[in-house]
């Protein structure tokens, strides 16, 4: 493998649109960067910001949130709620000293395999540019954040 940094990204998909876009990308044999690992939710409205925090805390370098286009949510308008949470979440991340660009929201309909593919590739490059987050290495066993130095001392 090459020397360049290979980020690990968790992608949340909606059962009705982006998950199907991923299926379509597969069926059409489109190629995208292997750095993204997808989780299926029934709707972007199911996305609890805790999931994003958990992913970052467990070692993901970035999180991609995807859902149906505005106005096209299978459950009427829950993607707007996802959008609200996303905007708030970015502010929280900033407050915590994490680049808010590590989390990105993208709309992709079931027909947009190409769009999803392109978005994934772009996001992987963006996270690659930001470098590793390594938050998992800054946590103690009980999940609480600890000083990076302290970790090293304990390890030593």
């Amino acid at each position: 493998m090459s020397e360049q940094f290979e980020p690990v990204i968790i992608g949340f998909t909606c059962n009705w649109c982006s998950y199907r876009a991923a299926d379509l990308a597969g069926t059409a044999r489109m190629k995208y960067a292997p750095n993204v690992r997808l989780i299926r939710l029934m709707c972007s409205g199911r996305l609890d910001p805790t999931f994003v925090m958990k992913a970052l805390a467990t070692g993901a370098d970035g999180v991609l949130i995807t859902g149906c286009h505005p106005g096209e949510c299978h459950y009427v308008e829950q993607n707007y709620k996802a959008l609200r949470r996303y905007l708030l979440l970015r502010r929280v991340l900033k407050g915590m000293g994490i680049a808010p660009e590590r989390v990105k929201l993208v709309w992709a309909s079931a027909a947009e395999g190409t769009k999803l593919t392109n978005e994934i590739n772009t996001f992987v490059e963006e996270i690659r540019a930001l470098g590793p987050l390594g938050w998992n290495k800054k946590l103690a066993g009980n999940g609480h954040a600890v000083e990076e130095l302290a970790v090293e001392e304990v390890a030593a």
Partner: protein
Amino acid sequence: MSAETKKPKVGVYVCHCGTNISHTVDVEQVRDWAEKTLGAEGVVISRDYKFMCSSLGQELIEKDIKEMGLDRVVVAACSPHLHEMTFRGASKRAGLNPYLTELASIREQVSWVHTDKEVATEKAKAVVAGAVERVVQNEPLEDIRVPIHPDTLVVGGGIAGIQAALEIANAGFKVYLVEREPSIGGHMAQFDKTFPTLDCAACILTPRMFEAGMHPNIELLTWSEVTNVAGYVGNFTVTIKKKPRYVIEELCTGCGICVEKCPKKVVDDVYEAGLGYRKVVYTPFAQAVPKYPVIDAPNCTYFQKGTCKACEKFCPTNAIDFNQKEEFINVEVGNIILATGYDLFDARRVSNYGYGRLANVFTSIEFERMCNAAGPTSGNIVLRDGKTQPKSVGIIHCVGSRDKNYNNYCSSICCMQSLKFAHLVKERTGATVYDFYIDMRTPMKAYDEFYQRVMDEGTLFVRGKVAQVTNAARNEHEEGKLIIQVEDTLAGKQRRIPVDMVVLSTGMEPRHDAKETSHLFGIGCSSDGWFTEKHPKLDPISTMTEGIMIAGTATGPKDIPASVAQGAAAAARVLDKILQKEVVLEPIKASVNQEQCSGCRICNGLCPYNAILFHEDRMVSEINPALCQGCGTCVAACPAGAINGTGFSNAQILAQIDGLLMDVNLAGA
């Protein structure tokens, strides 16, 4: 994870999918790795197989469940949208609750989209680990069974909707047929002849319309529109707005005296496509079903000035009622068929073809009306002056279709429609006909034969996309004519062909309000606006929303035979559901743990289905499972963590994250 409960016994099955997976993922490596590394998570057996979905593959799982006492299953194969049902079925047959089975998509999400085998294999492991961690947290669930209401709603009374309504009604079940215009019939009612057989449209359509109008099981709601849809498959409550007709249907005999006596005429933009006139109280055409007229209130002198009432004076049964108000009715139905049809492309948009500017440029639907014996010119093909027969006619294909500037798709019927026009012009006027096409598309039964017939009749075919239609003459031959400028790609030269009349074969477009309709009914539509099928090939008449079917041109351009076939197919699907009497739903629902709910009411406003009610007395929220559709938005919002979403619980998703990132943490350790 949950140490207190007994350790789960998970079986992992990795599929080669022929070579679909194994050509980019080292399946054996994933299998070995799962058994070794995921042993701590509960994996007790891991196998690989050429085709897991085959009966032998499924038996492998069933055997292990029975003999090894597996209580969780992970199949690493294709997308759950393809085979989740298959493997849940296998588990069920072996006595394991089907919801304790997970599909890890290592085909659509790994082998088909990546190329480097080493990297793909690592990702496949992560996906499998995610599924294993998740499945351990799965709870056994029971399918939800709900009874199906035997009545059906059909929206749109074009040929597709009429066909669907008749099939269901003839099988003995009640149908509400809602049509927004005063009569059913749709576009077909406007035509003269139909390709390729040239039978008269009215002759074949009217009996169907009449049958639908008289059928004891069909309740016709014309001049009506659906305004609200609540509920879910089997149990929809639909609100229908009946616009005021100002004619009491119970009293009206359809004698037509009011129409005769009404002193005011307006241009008929709908049925006559702007070519003819109609009265202000009118039935769109002679064979309209139902026969009751409507008063076009915005144009009615009485509504404008408070005088006239000619219709009221002359109506022999006192059926005119100027005080009618719009009415809203609620109906309960189990299934819905949407057959709302298409709109025509607006030819004005292609300004270089001159429609709306050059008098003798006509659209296809204007031409249909002109050919119709009951139409504005009594079936005579004449210029805009209403009397002169053209000596030469140019017909242009693909107007607004197959063009990046307008619609990318092929409207599928315009070639045949143009050939039909060419034949009619020849037959009725003997004029010289030029037919300008990009590609001739005549693939259905008896279509190409029709093309050959029109060639034999002497229509002159020019292959090339017309650049413009102009009246700027360059010589005396062109004087007073419409000149068609085209690159003849077969002759390899530019040509200017002067004609008296031009007919534009305008394409089909989704209904202008298709997006609103799709939102109202909660189904998908493409960015163009065509309704999206559940599967474009294998299930073209279903949608992603259970209980809502689609038929006819609402899903994309097609001809009458295909629209009729879809109407019938959608009806068959509905009958299948009615006869099953109940429907099985996935048990994905939210519920509030009343002990944990703090009564903050944050969830209350989040549900689009108003499924969450608040008990003021006990200060807790509760979710009505019949209304909850399982989106999970409230689950994500509850600050007390009091709401559980089955199938997608916090525990399942958090565990899946752990699994997906297992390698990162193993490497870091």
